[in-house]
C-alpha cells in the first residue's frame, strides 16, 4: 500500500499477483512496484501497480489494474468479472474508450477469488463527491474540453455497432416495454435478495414503474452509470470508461437520463458537475442523430430512484449480515430514506 505502513495481507497479495503475472507474461524476473489498493469502487477490490520485466532483452514497465471479486461486495449478484472482461475484449477494437482486458482468472486458487487484469490507462478519476474532485471538475468545466469529451464518449458508446462488436451476449430486450420492465425486474430481484421488507414508498415506486414503462425500439450499448467518477480523465479528455458493472443492451435514454438528472450535479447547474445542459443535448443529438426523448428520460430518472434504493439496501445488508466490513456500505443504510424521499417527490408527494 502506498503512503503508509504496509499490512501483511497487502504484501501477500502483492507476491501472489506477481507470481501470477510471471506465469502469464512468461517473465520470471517480473517485479511489482507502486502496489496500491484504491478506495474507490463498491463492487470489487481494485489494485493498481506497475510491473517491470524483461522482454526481448529490454526492460519494460507497464501499468496494470486488477479487479478482484471478493464475493461479498455490492452488485455481486448482478455482475461478474467474467462478463466485464468479455465486454472489455469486445470493446478493444472499437472507438469506445475502455481499458484493454488482459487476463481473467476464475480459479480461486490464484487469489482466493475471481479477478481480471486490465490495462492501467493514463488518467485520473477524482471522486466527484469530495472537495478536491468537485474543484477538479469545476475547473475542467471552465476549460471546456472535458465536457465535450464527456459528451463525445457517450455518443461513441451509443452509436457503437454493438451487434458487430459481439455484445449481443449481454441479452437483447424485446422491443416495446421489454427494456424498461426488464430493468425494473432486475432491480426488484436485488431488493428481494436482501430479504428486507421493502419500504411502502419503494412498493409504490415499483408499482408506478411497472404501470408506466415506456415503449421503445431504440437499442444501444448502455453504460448504466455514466457520470463523473466512472471514467478516467487524461489531458482533459475521457481516456477510459470504467465500472462496467451495470452495462446492458437497451434504450440509450437510460444513460441520457442519468446524465440529465440532478443526482450528480453536486449543487451546481452543470450536469455531472461538468457540462452545460443545452450544450450536452445539442452535441449529443448532433453526434448520435438521436433526438432525446424527455418523457422516457423522466421515466428512467424515476427508475434510478428504485435502482439506488436497491443498491443501498443490498449494500447496507452486506454489512449488516457481516459479509463485508467496509464501513462505506454500513453508511448506505441512511441513504435509503434519502432516495425514497426523492422518489416520493418524483411521484408527486
Amino acid at each position, binding site marked *: *500500500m502506498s503512503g503508509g505502513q504496509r499490512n501483511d495481507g497487502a504484501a501477500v497479495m502483492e507476491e501472489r499477483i506477481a507470481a501470477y503475472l510471471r506465469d502469464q507474461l512468461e517473465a520470471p524476473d517480473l517485479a511489482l512496484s507502486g502496489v496500491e489498493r484504491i478506495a474507490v469502487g463498491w463492487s470489487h477490490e481494485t489494485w493498481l501497480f506497475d510491473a517491470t520485466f524483461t522482454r526481448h532483452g529490454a526492460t519494460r514497465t507497464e501499468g496494470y489494474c486488477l479487479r478482484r471479486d471478493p464475493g461479498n461486495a455490492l452488485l455481486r449478484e448482478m455482475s461478474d468479472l467474467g462478463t466485464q472482461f468479455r465486454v472489455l475484449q469486445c470493446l478493444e477494437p472499437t472507438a469506445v474508450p475502455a481499458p484493454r482486458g488482459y487476463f481473467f482468472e476464475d480459479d480461486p486458487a490464484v487469489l482466493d477469488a475471481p479477478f481480471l487484469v486490465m490495462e492501467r490507462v493514463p488518467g485520473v478519476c477524482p471522486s466527484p463527491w469530495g472537495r478536491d474532485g468537485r474543484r477538479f471538475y469545476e475547473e475542467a468545466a471552465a476549460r471546456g474540453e472535458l465536457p465535450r469529451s464527456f459528451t463525445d464518449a457517450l455518443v461513441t458508446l451509443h452509436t457503437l455497432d454493438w451487434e458487430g462488436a459481439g455484445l449481443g451476449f449481454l441479452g437483447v430486450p424485446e422491443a416495446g416495454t421489454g427494456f424498461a420492465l426488464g430493468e425494473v425486474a432486475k432491480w426488484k430481484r436485488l431488493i428481494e435478495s436482501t430479504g428486507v421488507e421493502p419500504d411502502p414508498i419503494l412498493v409504490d415506486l415499483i408499482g408506478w414503474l411497472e404501470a408506466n414503462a415506456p415503449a421503445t425500439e431504440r437499442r444501444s450499448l448502455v453504460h448504466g452509470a455514466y457520470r463523473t467518477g466512472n471514467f478516467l480523465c487524461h489531458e482533459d479528455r475521457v481516456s477510459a470508461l470504467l465500472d462496467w458493472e451495470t452495462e446492458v443492451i437497451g434504450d440509450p435514454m437510460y444513460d441520457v437520463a442519468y446524465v440529465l438528472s440532478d443526482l450528480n450535479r453536486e449543487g451546481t447547474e452543470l450536469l455531472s458537475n461538468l457540462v452545460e445542459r443545452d450544450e450536452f443535448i445539442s452535441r449529443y443529438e448532433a453526434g448520435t442523430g438521436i433526438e432525446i426523448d424527455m418523457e422516457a428520460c423522466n421515466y428512467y430518472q424515476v427508475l434510478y430512484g428504485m435502482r439506488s434504493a436497491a443498491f443501498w439496501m443490498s449494500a447496507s445488508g452486506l454489512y449488516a449480515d457481516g459479509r463485508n466490513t467496509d464501513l462505506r456500505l454500513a453508511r448506505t443504510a441512511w441513504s435509503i430514506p434519502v432516495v425514497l424521499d426523492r422518489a416520493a417527490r418524483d411521484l408527486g408527494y
Partner: protein
Amino acid sequence: MAPDELLARLSSTLRHDIGPAVVEPFPKTQAFMASVVLEKLSAQIRLAPAHAEAEAADLAARAADLPALLGTAPVPAAVAAAADRLAAGEGSPALSALVGALWAEREALGSERFEAVLGRARTTMRARIDRQMEYAA
C-alpha cells in the same frame, strides 16, 4: 450519559481526532465513515420514541379511514387482506402490502377508489419519510 450522546461523542472523536491522524487512504475513509454512521445512529436513537409514537398514530388513522375510502363496492381480496393487517396494527409492512395490493388490483378497484386510497396512503408515507429524513439527510 445517554446512549445517543455517547454515540455522538464517539462520532466527533473519530472525525476530529482519529481520522485526521490516519495516513493511508482506505483506513482514513473508514474512520470518516464510522464517524458518519455513529452520528446518524445517534440522531436515530434520540428521535426513535417520538417517531414510533407518530407512526403508530398515523397508521391507526389510515386504518380507520380505509373502510370509507373503499366504499361498499366489492374489494379485491388482496386489498382487503392488507387493510385487515393495517387494522391489526402490523405497522409499515401492512402499509407496504396495501400499496402493493392497490397497484396490483387497480383495474378491479377502478381509478377513483385507487386514487383515493393510494392518495391517502401517500400522505402517511410522506409523513413517515419526513421523519426518517430528520436523521438520514
